[in-house]
């Protein structure tokens, strides 16, 4: 006999289940409640809080609730996008955990009827977890490269809490034509339910659903399910077969199989469509002999899709599926009686209402949002800045070149990638529309470590700022929220604060959140991660064939800093962490940022203003921004000479407050630019100019006190790219 505890339910939840069902549930039924009411599937700790996020926006076609959010790019193209985490599986088995994470988010996008065109991954590791990192990078490459979706960017950061709780959050972006809506909600009674893809094995039973819904410790080793193995080849066939089936117009409803496998997919489909469901489990193709109903329903075998086909013309869709070498299996029918009935060998093994499984779990109430007063954003006293320390900082794990990672990803397949992973924003040219697509992802974990609110707001601000340097207005955001054990009050409070920060920034910047993912229990042996918000943003690029430069190209331009710091705000910065401290990341001036990005978006398009290169200041502060502006990727077009005041040098050079932008502007047009900025009350200061002499020169102070440091390009490049990935 199965007990409520065996399947991860609390006493109260078990009592409530008995009340709903009106009898003692069978083992199988307990199992279904267990997985569907797990944190991972029910969002019981987060759903009430996610409601705080703004969902409305002019471009939103599908908000949260489906498999991915969808926004309208223009009359020809809609963009489906979402971030998904695969943290726990990547700790248990880095290669396969990360690979199946990529496969899973690709299926989510396909389940919206969109063709996946780009991936970005956001990774967090302990600084010494080399084996995990190398495994994760291999897994992402193995799957993305083989299925043929380019990885066009991402981010990697390190922190002690991630050593045994690596984070693997993957963002997938797909395209579909307007009018091609599909989802789990279109089934009508009397239609046929088909399962396609990989045969079901005993893979990952309780994996995402239960393991990811509790902390991980050595004691859980036995609970380790059979690890799911990614099969990008079958994934590719499944993706093509599904898209081909959709193109026939004969698919009524579609749902991918992810966490909690068939149990989750089928019950969700029934609820969304408002139909009953009768599944005959004998017809589910199994990889192993004698699988029980429990195993069949809870298996997390990858590369599977559930389709409901038009009762009359379904054959057309089936033919399309078969042409890709897959064998569709009819496993049941939709019914009018609202019941969710599972049959095995002629016996009804579960008779429930799908509603109970999907929406029945009691949610944890969320207290009314209350924002703690902002902490004083001073950070801490800086270390003295020296030229050696600045160069050494370029090799910091959080700042150094990511080339040893991203060169293992195919970033160019599908021939849309204009700007790939070597840039801080991805720019894609579309074959489907004259407009382009810009994608950014942001979420430095340090920023939310002490003050989750400012970290959440900072992540949104940075994702938006990174689009703004390409004159792109975000159409929607997706958020990956990663945290520790939600039963710990501090964790849940920080989680709430993180959401409030995201909400406030999204509202201030006028961007809706169209979907996302929550990953709790990133906690092993009582060590939890920093709350980690990861924000993805997409928008329409106005001229993808000619992105604005992010490096200097010629001498004689003015270098300008927009929104220079007015207070000492080193909190949460790499510089501070290198000095052995970590204080709160400052609250980003959202109103200031809104005005600045609004101005940037039109100023860049105005050729008469002569803005040449532009970069958003982020991790590593102004210092790293200037180094990257020099263009370490290739031979330089020019050198940089800037001057900073002597007092508060560290704060000026190394704070990481989002909202600062570095611009190079044609000398002759500077007065016009300045006039526009002051009309909008946007602060700016001239830092210096681009010069013929290669390298980076920094003059500190003025007059007779002034001194100049100069670094050759090669010296900076050597420090920044010393890491060879091992």
């Amino acid at each position: 006999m199965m007990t409520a505890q065996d399947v991860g339910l609390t006493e109260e939840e078990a009592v409530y289940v008995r009340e709903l069902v009106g009898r003692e549930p069978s083992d199988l039924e307990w199992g279904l409640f267990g997985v569907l009411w797990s944190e991972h599937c029910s969002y019981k700790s987060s759903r009430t809080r996610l409601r705080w996020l703004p969902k409305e926006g002019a471009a939103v076609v599908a908000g949260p609730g489906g498999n991915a959010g969808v926004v309208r790019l223009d009359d020809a193209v809609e963009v489906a996008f979402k971030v998904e985490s695969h943290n726990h599986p990547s700790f248990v088995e880095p290669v396969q955990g990360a690979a199946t994470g990529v496969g899973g988010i690709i299926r989510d996008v396909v389940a919206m009827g969109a063709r996946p065109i780009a991936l970005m991954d956001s990774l967090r590791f302990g600084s010494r977890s080399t084996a995990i990192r190398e495994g994760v990078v291999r897994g992402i490459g193995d799957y993305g490269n083989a299925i043929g979706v380019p990885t066009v960017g991402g981010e990697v950061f390190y922190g002690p809490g991630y050593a045994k709780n690596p984070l693997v959050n993957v963002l997938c972006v797909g395209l579909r034509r307007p009018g091609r809506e599909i989802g789990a909600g279109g089934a009508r009674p009397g239609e046929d339910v088909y399962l396609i893809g990989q045969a079901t094995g005993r893979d990952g039973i309780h994996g995402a659903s239960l393991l990811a819904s509790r902390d991980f410790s050595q004691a859980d080793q036995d609970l380790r399910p059979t690890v799911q193995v990614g099969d990008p080849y079958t994934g590719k066939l499944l993706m093509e077969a599904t898209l081909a089936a959709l193109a026939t117009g004969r698919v009524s409803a579609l749902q991918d199989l992810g966490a909690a496998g068939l149990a989750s997919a089928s019950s969700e489909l029934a609820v969304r469509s408002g139909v009953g469901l009768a599944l005959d489990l004998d017809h589910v193709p199994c990889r192993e002999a004698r699988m029980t109903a429990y195993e069949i329903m809870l298996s997390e075998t990858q590369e599977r899709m559930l389709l409901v086909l038009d009762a009359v013309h379904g054959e057309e869709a089936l033919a399309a599926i078969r042409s890709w070498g897959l064998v569709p299996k009819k496993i049941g029918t939709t019914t009018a009686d609202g019941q969710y009935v599972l049959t095995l060998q002629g016996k009804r093994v579960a008779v429930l209402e799908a509603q109970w499984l999907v929406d029945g779990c009691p949610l944890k109430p969320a207290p009314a949002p209350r924002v703690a007063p902002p902490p004083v954003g001073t950070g801490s006293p800086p270390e003295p800045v020296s030229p050696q320390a600045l160069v050494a900082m370029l090799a910091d794990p959080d700042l150094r070149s990511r080339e040893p990672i991203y060169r293992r990803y195919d970033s160019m397949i599908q021939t849309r990638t204009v700007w790939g992973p070597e840039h801080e924003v991805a720019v894609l040219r579309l074959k489907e529309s004259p407009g382009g697509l810009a994608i950014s992802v942001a979420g430095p974990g340090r920023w939310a470590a002490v003050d989750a609110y400012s970290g959440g707001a900072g992540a949104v601000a940075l994702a938006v700022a990174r689009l703004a340097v390409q004159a792109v207005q975000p159409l929607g955001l997706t958020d990956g929220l990663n945290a520790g054990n939600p039963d710990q009050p501090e964790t849940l409070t920080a989680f709430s604060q993180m959401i409030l920060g995201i909400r406030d920034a999204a509202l201030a910047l006028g961007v809706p959140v169209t979907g996302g993912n929550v990953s709790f229990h990133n906690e092993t042996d009582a060590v939890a991660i920093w709350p980690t918000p990861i924000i993805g943003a997409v928008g329409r690029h106005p001229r993808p064939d000619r992105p604005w430069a992010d490096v200097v190209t010629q001498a004689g331009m003015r270098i300008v800093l927009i929104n220079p710091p007015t207070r000492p705000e080193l909190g949460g910065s790499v510089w501070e962490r290198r000095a052995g401290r970590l204080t709160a990341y400052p609250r980003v001036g959202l109103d200031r940022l809104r005005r600045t990005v609004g101005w940037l978006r039109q100023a860049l398009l105005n050729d008469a203003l002569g803005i040449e290169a532009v970069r958003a200041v982020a991790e590593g502060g102004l210092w790293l921004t200037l180094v990257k502006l020099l263009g370490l990727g290739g031979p330089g077009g020019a050198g940089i000479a800037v001057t900073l005041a002597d007092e508060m040098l560290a704060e000026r050079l190394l704070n990481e407050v989002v909202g600062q932008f570095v611009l190079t502007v044609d000398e002759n047009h500077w007065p016009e630019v300045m006039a526009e900025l002051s009309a909008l009350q946007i602060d700016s200061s001239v830092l210096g100019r681009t010069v013929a002499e290669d390298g980076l020169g920094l003059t500190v102070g003025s007059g007779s006190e002034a001194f100049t440091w100069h670094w050759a390009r090669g010296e900076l490049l050597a420090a920044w790219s010393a890491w060879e990935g091992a």
Partner: protein
Amino acid sequence: MMGNKVAVVTFPGSNCDHDTVWALEQLDAEVVVVRHDARDLPACERVVLPGGFSYGDYLRAGALAAHAPIMDAVGRAVEREAVSVLGICNGFQILCERGILPGALWSNTSGEFVCRWEWVEVASPPAGWPEFSTGMRFRLPVAHGQGAFRVQEDGLAQIWAQGGPFLRYVDPTTSRSTGYSPNGSVDGIAGISRGRVIGLMPHPERAMHSVFGSVDGRRFLRMWLGGP
């Protein structure tokens, strides 16, 4: 100049097929897509085996696709010298696995997939393509995990005896093609030819526009199609 009807073959798991068709169409080739399970080639002068991960590249890259029914047809057409064949990346691997081209493409020495821009140089123009002259260079991306060209000792001697390999990688630091490769290829070989069959690891179809980093793929494919 020959006619420009090009058959692009797709295998389950091919994923550069769309890019290849798109590239060829920009050069005004008449493209027809042929499935792996077709028994015959359509009437055409040229065949392209595109890149990707046919059959997941399981077992060995290209090994399973080499046995697809369409490869019987390609093999027959090659024997009759009825078509020109271009294998790009996975297509090159399939041609070697099939024995249509000599040698084998093995895991990169690094053990890792590599995606980056490389320069390649014509070491020996394929017979029948005077457009490709010795020393000509192209900047093209590579993206592969199994791109190390390997061959038995006598095989290498043979390749050189017959004039040398078609393409070799150019060392980005010395700007010479003296054995450098991003993957551990013997003699830095990036592509070879035999008769009217050409195989290469880099992806010309990804270098069709300066906005993607280079137009050398356009140049390359135009020459292969017999244009100037």
